[in-house]
């Protein structure tokens, strides 16, 4: 079974600063995907960024980027130029590839607060 660990229950950052959220995972799979989802107070989970395990290049989406270290099974999220609207719970998630690529396994989340 896969496990996803987020070791930072809470973090805070000043507006316009950069913050990094940590995630580690454990799997014996070679084909998989990793994700960061954001959950604001509205409870709706929103996909922030996605990484395919077979790609060595780190994914980026505007102010969001990841540091994917496959050998270390580490997948951190960097948020640059933090904005007040980035305040939310952030969940790291794992999904197997191949025929089972539909089930997400989530970590416990990190509550990020962006301070003005």
């Amino acid at each position, binding site marked *: 079974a896969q496990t*996803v660990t987020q070791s930072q229950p809470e973090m805070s950052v000043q507006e316009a600063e950069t913050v990094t959220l940590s995630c580690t995972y454990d799997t014996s799979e070679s084909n998989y*995907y990793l*994700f960061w989802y954001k959950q604001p107070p*509205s*409870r*709706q*989970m*929103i*996909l922030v960024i*996605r990484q*395919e395990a077979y790609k060595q290049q780190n994914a980026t989406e505007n102010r969001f980027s990841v540091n994917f270290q496959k050998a270390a099974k580490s997948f951190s999220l960097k948020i640059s130029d933090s904005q007040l609207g980035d305040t939310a719970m952030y*969940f790291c*998630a794992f*999904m197997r590839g191949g*025929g089972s*690529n*539909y*089930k*997400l*396994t*989530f*970590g*416990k*989340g990190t509550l990020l607060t962006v301070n003005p």
Partner: protein
Amino acid sequence: GAGVSQTPSNKVTEKGKYVELRCDPISGHTALYWYRQSLGQGPEFLIYFQGTGAADDSGLPNDRFFAVRPEGSVSTLKIQRTERGDSAVYLCASSLTGHNTGELFFGEGSRLTVL
């Protein structure tokens, strides 16, 4: 609507009662998922529908939980003889197909409180 719609938004019930939670996915999405998010935890997989059939119900905790999707669109999660431990946010998501690269579209969830 444009997004995944879940009703009710909040439901308070008494222990032992029967509850139904409804999910209306994005039009045209063939895959539908239910997840349960307990307080302080990440969402946990319950069940996955491809069309009308449950392709994987391995996450349902016990036989008090059941879900249907009779016409391949709206889905209902049914909980019998509710227990206090069933209190959680129940999230529904949909995607265009079942085998995807992880872009699930989530609703805002139904918060269930069992007294």
